[in-house]
Every structure is written in C-alpha cells, then in structure tokens.
C-alpha cells in the first residue's frame, strides 16, 4: 500500500511569513495526526482528526497554527505568522486502529 505522503519535504521561510504543509494519509485511515518534532525531542501531538472532525487540538497554538481536513482525507497545516521557535519537522501520521503510520515529514526552518 502507498504510505503517508507529505509535501514539501523542506521549507525555509523568514519569521512572520506564512507556510502551509500538506498531508495525504493512507487510503481508508480515518484518523490523521499532525506532530511537531523539534530537534533532539520526541514528536509532540499538535492535532488529531477523526474523519473530518477534530478529536484533540489541546496543544495546537491556535493563535498562529491552524489545520483542516475538509473531506476527511487530505489535510493541511498552516502557520501564520511563523516564529523562530517553529523550526522543526512536521510529521503527519494516519491510523486505522492502534498503530500510527508516519510520513517522512516536512522540515521547516524559520530564519
């Protein structure tokens, strides 16, 4: 089966600019997650979708981060405006049950 697809792989922006990441989960996976992985740390959940509804966004900085999964398939994560501390790898994962399947991530560098 095709894996979780993410784009772009790399992005460099200046602080205060906006950026968007895209994720296409594995077909049939109802649950989709966005994780933030800062260098030297484990992934931290930003938001979890079940189909097109939000299950958990308690750690999403809602003043600057937003995410949507309008048709219950693809998802986008947006940051506006970006800060230096947003430099990280943004991982998308999907799940049919207990195990998560991860994409290769988008490495964001904010200068």
């Amino acid at each position: 089966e095709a894996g979780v697809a993410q784009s772009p792989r790399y992005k460099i922006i200046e602080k205060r600019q906006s950026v968007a990441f895209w994720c296409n989960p594995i077909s049939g996976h109802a649950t989709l997650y966005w994780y933030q992985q800062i260098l030297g740390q484990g992934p931290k959940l930003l938001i979890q979708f079940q189909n097109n509804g939000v299950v958990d966004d308690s750690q999403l900085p809602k003043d600057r981060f937003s995410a949507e999964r309008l048709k219950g398939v693809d998802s986008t994560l947006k940051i506006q405006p970006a800060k230096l501390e947003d430099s990280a790898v943004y991982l998308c994962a999907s799940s049919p049950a207990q195990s998560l399947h991860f994409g290769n991530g988008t490495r964001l560098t904010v200068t």
Partner: protein
Amino acid sequence: AQSVAQPEDQVNVAEGNPLTVKCTYSVSGNPYLFWYVQYPNRGLQFLLKYITGDNLVKGSYGFEAEFNKSQTSFHLKKPSALVSDSALYFCAVRDGVNQGGKLIFGQGTELSVKP
C-alpha cells in the same frame, strides 16, 4: 496524565552484542505501548506494540520488547546488534481506556552500533 521516559539519550553497543533501550511509562489505565525507529531525514517506522497478552512482544528486524507491569517498563531488546540498527528509537504510550486517544512519545534514544 500519561507520560513516557527514556532515561538514556544515547546507547553505544558493539556489533554482535545484545542491546537494550530502556523505556518507562505512566498511564491511568491499561497501557498500549509502542516502539518506533527513525532514520535520518525519515519519518518514524513502527517496530512493535504491546496491547494485551504475552509480555514478550516480537517485532520487525529481530527486535523484541518486554512489558513489565510492576516496573512500568517496556524495554526494547535485540540479541545481536547490527551496524544498520544505528538510529533514533522512540517509545510511545497510549492510555488503553481511550483507544483512539493520542500517542505520547518519549524524547528518544540514539543507538550507535560500532563494527
């Protein structure tokens, strides 16, 4: 609140020797426990999981992990390490009471296997 601790930032092992990567957890209900591996510039790859049943779980690439409820541990092991096992390893836990709940990751342990 659930949490995961990986007490070692780095583990160094000689090729052919056994390896152990440690993990302890805290959840309010029954734990669902996972190990993932991350190679440079890649996403996380699933290695194995414990949901219920036998405390010794076997996974991909010859890895196994032992669930110890009394010590709240889920250490990752391999009898004979390979240089290609060198990577970043993450332990993760989900509270089994909320099966659709979020997966909490440890901070990761870098495994280095030398020839």
